[in-house]
């Protein structure tokens, strides 16, 4: 294989879409979790598992709750990105910065109330990519064009 490091391209479908899985595989393994796996220096693949009863309860509340993913710097716990997601999809992509350590929270945003965290990932470090090779430390804020939902909350 040729492993030339190339500038990271976005995933084909940054928004979740159904990928048919072979029959005979279980939908889950009974452990609530949010797992974050850096695909390259920019993109992180996330998957989560939630107890079906809990998921049904959340979805059936009738309130307008927006499921969101919050990307935060592990060192300072400072959120740097918020992004909507689909709870039932169980997977999502999120864009982060090379060379920094983050964690992700999956939760529910309720207008005017604090964000309710459902699941939190382990911290993960993004590898360096070519584009930021010369930088010793990235900016703590994502560039504006990468903030797709709303700007980070101030502490």
């Amino acid at each position, binding site marked *: 294989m040729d*492993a*030339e490091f190339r500038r990271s391209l976005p995933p084909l479908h940054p928004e979740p879409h159904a*990928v048919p899985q072979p029959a005979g595989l279980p939908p889950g*393994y009974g452990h609530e979790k949010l797992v974050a*796996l850096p695909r390259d220096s920019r993109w992180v693949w996330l998957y989560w598992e939630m107890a079906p009863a809990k998921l049904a309860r959340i979805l059936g509340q009738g309130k307008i709750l927006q499921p969101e993913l919050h990307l935060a710097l592990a060192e300072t716990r400072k959120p740097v990105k918020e992004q909507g997601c689909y709870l039932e999809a169980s997977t999502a992509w999120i864009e982060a910065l090379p060379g920094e350590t983050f964690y992700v929270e999956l939760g529910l945003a309720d207008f005017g109330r604090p964000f309710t965290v459902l699941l939190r990932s382990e911290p993960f470090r993004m*590898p360096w990519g070519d584009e930021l090779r010369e930088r010793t430390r990235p900016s703590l804020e994502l560039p504006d064009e990468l903030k797709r939902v709303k700007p980070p909350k101030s502490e």
Partner: protein
Amino acid sequence: MAGAFTLVLSMHRPWLGADPCPEDEWLLASLAGCYLPLVDLLERLREDGVRAPVAVAISPTLTAMLDDPVRRARLHRALADREAACSRAPDRPGEALSFHRERFKAARLALEGSACDIPGRLRALEEDGCIDLLACAATNALLPLLPQPKALQAQLRLAAAEHRRRFRGAAAGLWLPECGWDRRVGPAAAEAGFEYVFLEHHALERARPRPRCGAYAPVRATGGVFAFARDPELVRAAARLGPYAHPDYAELAFDVGPEIGDGRPMGLHTRKVGTKGTLADKPPYEPAAARAAAETQAEEFAQAIEARAARLALELRTRPALTAAFEAELFGHEWLEGPYFLERLLRRLAAGTNAQPKLPEWVLAHAPEAEEVEPECSTWGPGGYLDPWLRDENAWVVPHAHGLTERMLELAARFGPKAEAYPSPLEERALDACARLTALAQASDWGLLAGSRRQASWAGESLAKLVSSFLTLRGQLEERAVDADALAKAERASRILPDADFRVYA
């Protein structure tokens, strides 16, 4: 001597399960085209007194499949069928059928005798100092994709134990599947007793601090293991080699098998690549001309390596260590003329002085003191990290490997050495089978195959079988009612790592 050249070849095939499947063809093609010719050529070099040592990794998955007498009988039948098809076909001049008949016959005869004991022949070569046998992660798991530290540790402990069992000695070197590295791998490798590993070049080019010689000298990496890196320029140069690098090479897309055999491809490539035209217009394959072309390209590649070593020696003011690591299957399976290329390359480099083939231990003994660095996460996959395994079409594989691992960790905690529940002999067997099924589900192959158009459904079904066997046994273990039939079925589906002890997950 200007520099040292270390060639690393990794032999591995995906787990094919117990039952016959069309994918058995991979093993047959690799055995006849690559493994046997490769070991033959290494033995010829030994007999001719050519000092051209090579580091070789053979995965436990592959050795387990080669050991299986039922599978060997199937391979034997398939090879005999191919020979018969070659003999039955009308004698069309220049179609190279006799060339293919001879190579399938050689493989069939090897299966009848001891020549097919690839691991045994490799062990003898190592005893004679002709190769360095590397251990390979137990089931070719892509280690950065295993979030649980115990799972990573288990892959490497099982690898070390299997290598000791199979080759009657400990391995100093470890082949990391897909050159997969993150900061947890070094400590786990050291803990399992390994001394050195091989990484993709950007792991050292982006290491902190960046080593003075970049990818051209081994470094002491996180955890204390030494790390060699693939030479980026050789990677680029090698990418220009391969089955379509010369018009005289066999056209792999043309297979006369469906026409003269049972309708399936048989690896009977009787046309050459040529320079233009459709498949039907391709000129007949001439094995002697193809061999000559491969040997000429090997000469040119050797000259390029030597020139590069000389230039690097001047630039770095030290003896550079050039490392070239490939999947062994490139030579003979994916590129029919690959073994000719390899043999000429090794003979040519051994006769020269600028980049003599050396084993990793020689390089470590003769290199300046290794710098301590933290290599960057990396794989040798396109993109340099986890892109080939984390795509929309194949990332769904990952949660199943993780899910089984979590369940296995629970079982090991419940029945392991510190637990109160002591397993009965039947339960002990079931737990060991679960450990093997878990390790098999972690293989990097499932993700790669699930991402390919042709093998996606087979990969999914294979993974589903492993998962289903595991969950059945787990349920029975939870209820402490292991069914002997279910256990026998699971053991048959996971006949690998015979000494695996589930406590490796405890």
